[in-house]
């Protein structure tokens, strides 16, 4: 299915005053534009895990998140001729990914409703591509119990999509507020508000759950 994930060219608002050309990923993307397909594969392999992890917080299952990531990268390849390096590659990429995720959330048939009690049963056993099944396993992550992570997924899924996107872009992908604003096509002031509300809601809900 062909979807449009927004502009593949320059951002309409030049709110990220940085030398995009210095970004090695931008150089790779420019190589892609010149027809270097191996550069595209390098970009894909570098970013696909992050994109799938981000998308999974919107679409619910890893399989669907992988499909979405695939679609976004295909879109990038197809529209490479219109690419203009006006921001960091990550900012540009996540603008497309966020558009795709928010479109997906808007589609009634892909709404991601997670119920606190049945999350593990619903997704962990029946769905082989589900998120809980492939949960974290690094030594550092082991400090966070599976139960805590499940609760966090539930609370995260309950956040309004814009707040969720802003929070994940900032905390997960390390985008600055300016870059989040570019990715979400909104003002920095709106991003400040979205992230603050998401942070407070997440904190308070997690505390409530623990108590």
């Amino acid at each position, binding site marked *: 299915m062909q979807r449009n994930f927004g502009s593949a060219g320059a951002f309409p608002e030049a709110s990220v005053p940085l030398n995009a050309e210095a970004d090695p990923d931008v150089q790779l993307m420019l190589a892609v534009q010149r027809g270097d397909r191996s550069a595209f594969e390098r970009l894909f392999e570098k970013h696909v895990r992050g994109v799938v992890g981000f998308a999974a917080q919107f679409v619910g299952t890893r399989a669907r998140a992988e499909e979405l990531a695939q679609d976004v990268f295909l879109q990038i390849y197809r529209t490479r001729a219109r690419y203009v390096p006006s921001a960091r590659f990550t900012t540009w990429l996540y603008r497309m990914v966020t558009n795709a995720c928010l479109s997906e959330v808007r589609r009634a048939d892909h709404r991601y409703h997670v119920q606190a009690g049945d999350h593990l049963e619903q997704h962990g056993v029946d769905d082989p591509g589900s998120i809980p099944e492939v949960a974290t396993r690094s030594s550092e992550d082991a400090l*966070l119990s599976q139960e805590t992570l499940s609760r*966090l997924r539930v609370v995260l899924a309950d956040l309004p999509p814009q707040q969720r996107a802003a929070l994940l872009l900032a905390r997960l992908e390390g985008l600055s507020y300016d870059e989040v604003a570019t990715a979400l096509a909104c003002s920095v002031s709106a991003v400040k508000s979205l992230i603050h509300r998401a942070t407070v809601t997440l904190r308070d809900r997690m505390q409530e759950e623990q108590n």
Partner: protein
Amino acid sequence: MSRCQDFREDLTAWAEGQLPARQHERVSEHVTHCPHCGAEANRLRSAIAWQQHALRAVASLDGVDPLALSARLRRELTAAANDKAPAWSLRDVWGTMLGRLALAGAAVSVAAVVLLLAIGPGMVLMPLGLEAPPPAVTQQTDFFKDYPLIERLDVLEHFDTVESVPLDDDSASQHG
């Protein structure tokens, strides 16, 4: 309290160092002097640190295999390339000078055809000698052969008016 409300939404951005310098200074000053906001800022700092760690854990999917996905993408790209894509596009044609001339010529031709259809082909073809005039014209050769006569049609149109012009006084007295 209202002052605290003014700063409340800035606290997260302040704790993350995302405010412009002057705004950052203003919030810092307030947080230093307001124990309530100071405590909230500390709670937010802890929450931010925990969320950064926990969200990474939530989103880190060990089952994702970039190489397998890359192979899948490669297959899709190959399939897409084999799709029946047009050999050329308007964008490509417009990119060359010859293409622009050809497109401009095509546009003029289309406009001419539209005009021809709008005003009727006879109006264009007849002056060029490509279409015979209507029978009414061909049967009255005497009337149409002399173009200056046609120019006088305007005068002839007013013939009745000319006739009805009242006679001047001299003529009237002679008749009288």
